[in-house]
């Protein structure tokens, strides 16, 4: 039989694929082993611990979701990471702090020595949120006007660097104006930190704090309101149109600059609300307070699929829960929980850059 030279087809070796698969196998293997170890060998954490983790994760996640919305809104429209969003949140937290301090030192009932803050707690909180959100809204709009608008149409690196600059500027401005001191947030008595309803699980007390429930409920309300605005109102429709295609939207008579400005306003308001919630729930603010939550919220936005509103909400929740339970599951010290969030970011971007609820924008934008 005659040998015919069979054409040798050399499969191209895709290094990237190999790396992907290797990382995935290693990671999943480790995860399975850890879960097995936790459930069968160690048994350190009882049901009460898991409940505690879940509750704190949900609360944290809801705040992340609110911040992540701000990133996702802006990204959806301008395709740029508003790096200074965390600082917008920080400004909102400070504004809320000053409002609460002012109300706390305004004695309305001299006989009982009662301040406005505790005489009208609900109104005080509403005021704090109003001031915080207004401040952040203004900051967001001006940020866009000063640092981003002149750069529209520039190469992509340019607005990003500008955003980083704005972030550093705001952080340091806050440090110089308000001093780097850590400040205790003044809550009204009905929202005293670390008090709450006690649930007995596994014959151990699990405290579900008032501030936590408040934060969670408020976040959900904010997310619903925002979703309605974007999906149901005229303004929301304009925003979606601009996100889809700026030029066409402009031809349809939409004021693109105005829509972008309003997007920054909404994203700023969300950031401000998140800042005040952060202060009320965590109790301590300082000039750097927005940075790490900002990064993590960005992670959440990427996790859910950036530019996608429900994705950001889902991503925030998932990230919160993973961060709360991660150290226990992976068996690493709680000190390193920030590492988990960043690792998730890297992993998501490697395996599914479009996120959980991803849109079809990966190749082009990632």
């Amino acid at each position: 039989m005659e040998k015919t030279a069979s054409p040798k087809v050399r499969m191209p070796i895709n290094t990237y694929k190999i790396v992907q698969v290797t990382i995935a196998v290693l990671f999943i293997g480790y995860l399975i082993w850890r879960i097995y170890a936790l459930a069968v060998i160690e048994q350190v954490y009882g049901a009460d611990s898991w409940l505690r983790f879940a509750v704190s994760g949900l609360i944290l996640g809801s705040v992340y979701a609110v911040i992540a919305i701000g990133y996702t809104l802006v990204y959806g429209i301008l395709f740029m990471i508003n790096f200074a969003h965390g600082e917008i949140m920080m400004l909102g937290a400070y504004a809320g702090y000053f409002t609460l301090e002012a109300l706390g030192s305004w004695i309305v009932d001299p006989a009982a020595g009662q301040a406005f803050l505790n005489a009208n707690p609900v109104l005080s909180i509403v005021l704090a949120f109003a001031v915080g959100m207004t401040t952040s809204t203004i900051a967001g709009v001006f940020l866009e006007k000063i640092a981003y608008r002149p750069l529209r149409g520039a190469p992509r690196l340019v607005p990003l660097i500008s955003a980083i600059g704005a972030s550093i500027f705001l952080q340091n401005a806050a440090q110089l104006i308000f001093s780097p001191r850590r400040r205790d947030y003044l809550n009204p008595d009905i929202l005293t930190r670390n008090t709450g309803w006690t649930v007995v699980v596994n014959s151990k007390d699990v405290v579900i704090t008032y501030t936590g429930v408040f934060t969670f409920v408020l976040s959900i309300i904010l997310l619903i309101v925002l979703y309605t605005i974007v999906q149901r109102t005229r303004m929301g429709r304009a925003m979606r149109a601009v996100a889809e295609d700026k030029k066409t939207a402009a031809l349809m008579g939409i004021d693109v600059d105005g829509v972008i400005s309003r997007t920054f306003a909404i994203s700023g308001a969300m950031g401000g609300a998140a800042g005040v919630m952060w202060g009320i729930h965590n109790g301590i603010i300082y000039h750097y307070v927005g940075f790490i939550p900002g990064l993590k919220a960005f992670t959440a936005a990427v996790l859910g699929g950036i530019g996608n509103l429900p994705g950001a909400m889902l991503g925030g929740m998932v990230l919160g829960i993973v961060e709360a339970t991660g150290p226990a599951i992976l068996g690493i010290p709680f000190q390193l929980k920030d590492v988990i969030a960043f690792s998730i970011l890297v992993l998501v971007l490697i395996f599914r850059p479009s996120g959980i609820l991803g849109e079809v924008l990966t190749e082009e934008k990632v």
Partner: protein
Amino acid sequence: MKEHIRNGVSAGLTFGVVTIFFSLIGFTSTATELMGGFIGNTSTARASSPGAIFNLVFLLTLVYLWNGSMAAKPTEEDTQQKAMQSGLVAGTVTGLLVAIYAFTVGSINAAGIDMRDYLTSMSSDAIELFLLGLSPVVGAVVQLVWITAVGAGAGWLAFKLRDKPLRKAIGRLWERIKERFSQVPLIQKINKSKYGNFIWYGVILLVLVLIPLPLSDYWNYTLGTIGIYVLLGLGLNIVVGMAGLLDLGYVAFFAIGAYTVALLTAPTPHNLLWNFWIALICGVILAALAGILLGVPVLRMRGDYLAIVTLGFGEIIRILSKSDALTGFSGGPRGVRDIAGPSILGMPFNSPRAFVWLIILGCLLVIFVTSRLQNSRVGRAWVAMREDETVAQAVGINTWQYKLMAFAIGAAFAGLGGVLFASRNMFTGPEDHNLMVSINVLSLVIVGGMGSIPGVITGSLVLKGLPELLRQLETYRMLAFGALLVAMMIIRPEGLWPSKRRRLEMHEEEEEPPTEHLANPSGGDAA
């Protein structure tokens, strides 16, 4: 509203806010002190001494002059009257804002309330100084009158000085100096000779070797820091400037270099006590390897995602080095001390002066490598990738490989910087490797000019050298960096000393028909 009035209002608002901001961050007091230090007319006894008030008025007058001249920019119908009106409006707006502010803080201060708990630089002294030592009402009125007058004057002045741009005059002067120099016989001879370039390099080398000799240890130390930042800047320049990959976690490679030399040569925690030179090579290689390891998964991403991932990576390194989990391995939060310095033939070579020479040597090496790379096939591939990745791929550039190369080379330079830094300080710890290092390096690359070697050197001289000269302004450094990044992007994205190619890139869209009209059909001002 008429155009010139509108110009006046917008300039006035901007400068009013800026002035108030300067006062809030305490910059007015600091600048006054700084000027007092230079001309020696202030006393420490009283903050609002006549000398201090003079300095403040002088400095603020400069700001308000700028205000007026900004407002009086040329309009369609450019007359002296209109320019003065713009200046006047700007002055009035700024004056009103500042006067209201001065009156408010002045009265609060006069009521004896200490605001420092909330606004940290609002000390009684600072407020008194800002009111020029007057009572709140009088001070506010004086400010209003003064600022308005200066604004109007500046408007007039700006009109008079128009068409006599200072910048052009300086440019001409520079040209003339260059011409003069090239006519000196000796220089002409050198330029014409076959070895002209080498002779110039020799002269530069000689100057660099001689510079550290007359300087004190402190200045040599500073010079060393600047040199290390030149190293880092040149490394990041390859990644950001040439290949167009924004790496915000650059400090991670710096940390790897620093920790390598620390762990290999220090007595604690491992007591390996290796030779410095071997540790140096290990540090550079490890940093490059880390660059490749990080690069493999993340380099598929573009632009902003890469920035965030690298930022996250930098934070991971910092958190790890700070955590208790690794204390046994890397010294934990307390860091590693007693890192060995270099020695030559058994002679210790670790004075600040010796380190300056070492660092200069490193810089020269890196500059050599970078300039050779820039004009090679690799450098051109990087530029092509930065310009348009898809097209670069289409013409057969393996973008991933070249990106990885840029990442590894940049990381290696950072590793070298880290080794020298740790060894010179004889200490390294987590706080040496925070995000601010990355931001510093990024700032100097961007301010100097992305992709330009002389730009990076200029950038580090300006951003690391100037703060050393003006130590009082240390507190405002990061603030200024942030503002600089934004301002550079808006005003001069190609940097102070751009490479030619970059300058063309950044201004190429100006020649195209503006597309902005399409995006804004109303044509009106969105504000």
